[in-house]
């Protein structure tokens, strides 16, 4: 199980901000993104249309070949609009 977190405009498009069981063939962040696009085309489209930052366990990750570990919290952030 991993926890997926969708922020800002992604939040309303996402099926859930919750723990999900990933299929066996989703092992990296890149594979997770592809899986999200297949599962949730509207969300996938929004994520493709803007700069999306990925935060794993509260740290910014830029290397999408990073392998996902059990209990990871993975957040997808659209551009910040500030306070």
């Amino acid at each position, binding site marked *: 199980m991993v926890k997926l*977190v969708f*922020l*800002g*405009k992604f*939040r309303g498009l996402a099926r859930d901000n919750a723990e999900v069981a990933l299929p066996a063939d989703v092992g990296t962040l890149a594979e997770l993104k592809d899986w999200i696009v297949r599962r949730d085309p509207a969300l996938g489209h929004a994520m493709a249309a803007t700069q999306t930052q990925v*935060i794993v366990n*509260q740290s910014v990750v830029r290397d999408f070949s990073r392998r996902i570990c059990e209990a990871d919290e993975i*957040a997808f*952030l*659209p*551009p*910040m*609009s*500030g*306070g």
Partner: protein
Amino acid sequence: MQVRLTELPFDPQHEEAAFSAGRSEMGALVSFVGLCRGESPAVRGLHIDHYAGFTEKEVTRLAQDVAARFDCPDLLVVHRVGDILPGEAIVLVAALSRHRANAFDAVRVLMDYLKTDAPLWKRETGPDGARWIEPRAEDLARRAEAEGKRL
């Protein structure tokens, strides 16, 4: 250094008074309050999404950076998240310092950072429904300029 996110309305002047109380060794208090504008019917309300835990951590990091850069460790940030009504305060940034120049710089630059680098997402509800706000080119330009000037 105090950083607080709140889902409830807050009174910025009350926060300022509490922040500066008993600090009579300081000569200067600078504050910025950002208010939710109420130009009916353009904006009926505002929603600010945040990433619990991460947003606090990042805002604290920005504040620490500014504190070090301007030698102004006494900073206060209070930021609303959730639903905000016109007329309510969205953000308060305040600085106490012995001299006013540091305090002005710290508050101004921290606000610039909050506008561009804080993990916050704003959705405005207007006459045509709700829409998420993207960072403004003006804010990004100001931030770039501030970086160029100060570093």
